């Protein structure tokens, strides 16, 4: 059971059409997610992580953002062909999302209890006593103290860590098979983050949940993810098992990123740096988007985007050095 494919994304393209021109936010993204697995999606701000998540959920900000092509298969069912009404039935029940900022995910004028009850009423048709019991159970599962009385609290009466757990309890309320978590801990303090991550892993172990985990923090990746996909300028440029990615990164960008992150348990004399900055999605260079910053750049890098190559078992990379 541990190896069944649950979510497949194939060549997904989501572009922005604005006054500035065409912004290639998601530019041909493909990945697989299996039951019980956590896939990390890492990359710098603006590389397209959130747009990828939102596109998978069909929550991308239209009309400026449009999904141009690709496939999103949940249990083999094509989500991109579904109507909004059909999507609403799926969201929460089979695939749910945890947003980066818990405050925007919660409605400030409704109690936590109200917001938790809604999906339970719609998807699980729970009412009355059983609804209340389930809501309390969920808050307890996410270790929110005094769950019964907390149902009557409003979001602003919760601390950041508690809000994030409340949002997560809503996302988990109808036992979805897939959770899309977009930087769920970035706004949390480190000790609160550590506790939240442990909790999420525990819940995953119990329910065999598949998690797409977006972050820009390699420390979080090391702790949470089984596999990692590295994004740069709208494309996934490398995918590997976590252990393998850290020990033998194949793409020059991954390698440089890993070298430039300082570690708390080692004193180093000088940080490795990648000069320059990521390109604008409105003005991508021809060929490999990392070429302007890459120490190994060759002529053909500037002409054509490198094809995806498998360099080891479940380790793929898009770089001319590996072709």
């Amino acid at each position, binding site marked *: 059971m541990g190896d069944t494919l649950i979510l497949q994304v194939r060549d997904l393209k989501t572009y922005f059409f604005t006054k500035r021109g065409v912004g290639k936010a998601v530019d041909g993204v493909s990945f697989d997610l299996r039951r019980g697995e956590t896939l990390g999606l890492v990359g*710098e*701000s603006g590389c397209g992580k959130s747009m990828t998540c939102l596109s998978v959920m069909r929550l991308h900000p239209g009309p400026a953002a449009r999904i141009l092509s690709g496939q999103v298969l949940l249990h083999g069912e094509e989500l991109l062909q579904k109507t909004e009404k059909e999507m609403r039935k799926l969201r929460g029940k089979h695939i749910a999302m945890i947003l980066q900022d818990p405050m925007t995910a919660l409605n400030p004028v409704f109690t936590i209890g109200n917001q938790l009850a809604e999906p339970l009423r719609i998807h699980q048709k729970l009412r009355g006593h059983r609804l209340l019991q389930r809501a309390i159970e969920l808050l307890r599962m996410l*270790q929110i103290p005094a769950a019964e009385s907390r149902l009557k609290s409003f979001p602003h009466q919760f*601390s*950041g*860590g*508690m809000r994030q757990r409340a949002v997560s309890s809503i996302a988990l309320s109808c036992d979805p098979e897939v959770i899309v978590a977009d930087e769920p801990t970035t706004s949390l*303090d*480190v*000790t*609160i*983050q*550590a*506790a939240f991550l*442990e909790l999420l892993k525990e819940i995953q172990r119990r329910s065999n949940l598949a998690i797409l985990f977006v972050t*820009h*923090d*390699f*420390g*979080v*990746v*090391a*702790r949470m993810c089984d596999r990692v996909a590295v994004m740069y300028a709208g494309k996934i440029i490398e995918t590997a098992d*976590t*252990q393998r990615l*850290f020990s033998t990164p194949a793409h020059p960008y991954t390698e*440089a*990123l*890993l070298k*430039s*992150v*300082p*570690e*708390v*348990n080692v*004193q*180093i004399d*000088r*940080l*490795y*740096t*990648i*000069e320059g*900055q*990521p390109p604008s999605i409105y003005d991508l260079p021809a060929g490999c988007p990392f070429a302007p910053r890459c120490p190994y750049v060759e002529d053909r890098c500037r002409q054509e985007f490198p094809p995806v190559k498998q360099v080891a078992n479940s380790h793929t990379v898009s770089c001319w050095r590996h072709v």
Partner: protein
Amino acid sequence: MNGHSDSLLQVRGLKKHFAARGLLSLLSVRTWVRAVDGISFYVRPGETFSLVGESGCGKTTTAKLLLLLEQPTAGNIYFDGQDINQLKGSELRRYRSLVQAVFQDPWSSLNPRMRASSIIAEPLVVNHKPPKQEVQRRVEQLLMDVGLEPAAAANYPHEFSGGQRQRVAVARALALNPRLIVLDEPVSALDVSIRAQIMNLLRDLQRKYGMSYFLIAHNLATVRYLSHQVAVMYLGLIVEQATSEELFTKPLHPYTKALISAALPTQPGVQQERILLSGEVPSATHPPSGCRFHTRCPFVFDRCAVEAPQLRELAPGHTVACHLY
């Protein structure tokens, strides 16, 4: 005044309490946010002193007190042996020019209607009114110092990336040859690949010009990279202080240990002692009795809730406030 003769800045018993807003104050019950509640430390010339701790523990408030943006409720700050809250006239102006700041958000800390050249030159022009040519030469020098092209002088803030804006902010802070720069989360808003560039820049500039840094950061790896001395703050108090090397290799306070163990190793599979904390950070309005950490401490025992541990020097230069020792 006793203390360390080799220090540039000394802070003694510093407190800042804010009157709390909210329900209780409406009912005219006086409550106070004890943002900074009696801290002491000193900063040596040419060194980086860092404050670490979680959101709301009082780091920025401490920085504001150093920058004279807030008045202390109690305690003193001495710069070159003089109490900064007693300074007047030219001495006050001198302090304001010798102590500069760089803040977290490079998007909002620069005036959007000014060109980089004016932003960088402003402190210089206000303080010394130098001739135009000299200003231009100085701006060019400063741009070079922070790794920007001279042509960048003509740009407006929105024409820069986040990392470049932070370079402009650093150039401005350098303009008056400061002896201390307050850095409040200088890299946390920046992207991973840009962060390393700015951290190296800060380190190079300190080695070149010998100024001190007062650094605030919640990312411990950043702190380790840049600091000489590190103090760990929890709910308005310093709970542990040591040299950077000592603090990160031999942390003693349970909270410091929890922070370090939460600052995940960036390698998968590296196992280390994990100290997970339960519970939330208590409010600074009603800090817990005794040791303020006792509501979350995995090693708590009877004495902790009743008696506040005092900072004691357990090894040379390494002080800890915890009843375990």
